[in-house]
């Protein structure tokens, strides 16, 4: 009973007015906590943890790299969920949230790729290697670009929401397929990985190997990035809702005048 009531309460936020009111109330909390977490995590990580005995100070880039990479993938998952909600229940806020999240995902993917390259240059001796994980992130970046471009290209907002939602669903299947294809491709290309490639440390690997000294500031950074992402999505969705209202008001004015 109470769970059903709570589930119903969640759908109330499909009402743009209710969504705006609540998101404005909670936004300051998300901004403050996320920025505090990121500042604390980065300062702790940069200045109060020792250098790695092999990697030196370059190890500290994981405080940006890992959270950004995590959010890049989770952002796509969130877009997938909101696209499904839009297709099934036709809540405009849901479609606008997916639209609002996509550019954030692009930036997160770029941060992950760039910090990875900056770390890779001294560590692997190259800015870029066609390692499976790097390659799949590049493909994810292309998917984001196509998704945003489709949103921008279509004028009618409902058609755009429908088409991008279907693209998001189909794209997700192909993104997963590409992930496994790329894994296969690289093994097929480089059997008996060279030393450099064996050191091509993946995000999951670093997490497993990271010692506690590095882990706590990293955890704080991850929490900070998650909250920052939520804050940005709420903020940008609010902007999208207002932009649409302005458009409706202008249209009404034109008709009236």
């Amino acid at each position, binding site marked *: 009973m109470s769970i059903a009531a709570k589930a119903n309460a969640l759908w109330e936020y499909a009402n743009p007015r209710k969504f705006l009111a609540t998101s404005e109330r909670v936004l300051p909390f998300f901004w403050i906590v996320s920025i505090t977490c990121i500042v604390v995590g980065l300062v702790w990580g940069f200045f109060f943890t020792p250098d790695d005995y092999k990697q030196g100070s370059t190890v500290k880039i994981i405080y940006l790299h890992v959270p950004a990479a995590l959010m890049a993938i989770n952002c796509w998952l969130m877009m997938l969920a909101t696209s499904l909600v839009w297709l099934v229940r036709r809540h405009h806020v849901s479609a606008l949230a997916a639209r609002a999240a996509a550019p954030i995902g692009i930036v997160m993917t770029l941060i992950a790729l760039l910090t990875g390259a900056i770390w890779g240059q001294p560590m692997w001796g190259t800015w870029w290697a066609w390692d499976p994980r790097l390659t799949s992130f590049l493909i994810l970046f292309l998917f984001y670009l196509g998704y945003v471009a489709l949103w921008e290209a279509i004028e009618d907002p409902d058609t755009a929401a429908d088409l991008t939602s279907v693209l998001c669903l189909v794209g997700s299947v192909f993104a997963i397929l590409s992930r496994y294809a790329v894994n*296969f491709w690289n093994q097929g290309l480089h059997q008996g990985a060279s030393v450099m490639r064996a050191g091509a440390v993946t995000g999951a690997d670093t997490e497993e190997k990271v010692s506690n000294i590095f882990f706590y500031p990293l955890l704080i950074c991850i929490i900070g990035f998650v909250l920052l992402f939520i804050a940005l999505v709420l903020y940008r969705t609010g902007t999208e809702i207002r932009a649409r209202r302005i458009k409706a008001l202008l249209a009404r004015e034109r008709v009236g005048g």
Partner: protein
Amino acid sequence: MIALLLRDLKLAFRAGGGFGLGLAFFLIVTVMIPFAVGPQSSLLSTIAPGVLWLGALLACLLSLDRLLALDWEDGSLDLLATAPLPLESVVTIKALAHWLTTGLPLVLAAPFFGVLLNLPVPGFFWLVISLLIGTPAMSVIGTFGAALTVGLKRGGLLLSLLVLPLYVPTLIFGAEVARRGATGMEVQTPLLMLAGITAATIALLPFASATVLRINLR
């Protein structure tokens, strides 16, 4: 269904239908490659399987924006949507017609272009097989992309941006089959994966294409 297929084929073969353009594009890409990377035959034979696959893929991509756009412009797409034939069948037939007029000629021409790029002898067979299995997937995926962008005025470039990431798995496994075949390695795994992708896209993607087309025709 057969009438629709024949109609599409006729439209493609007659003047202005653009039949052969893809093939000509494939030829030009193949001719340009040695100018770009140098004429050493050992280098060419190493990159030949991948380059031929990429050339076929781009040639396929080139013809996609005509796939539905012409029917959209003259309104016949609206008629097809209201016809008793389900829209899923319509898009499947469209994809089949695209494959017969673009994919199949590319498959048949590929061995001749392979000669130009000094493809190793065992590679010819596997190149043709991999293209034969892979090009239907390209047509079906391309139909989805064409259905997505059909209502847009300048959808051509956007279509490429949307479709190319979807081509990644097909390209990886297809080119892998051709490359392994050319070097005499075992090809079974990528071949099965390629066939699996083609079968799955043919079975499932027409539903997505039809959904998208209905949204665009709304």
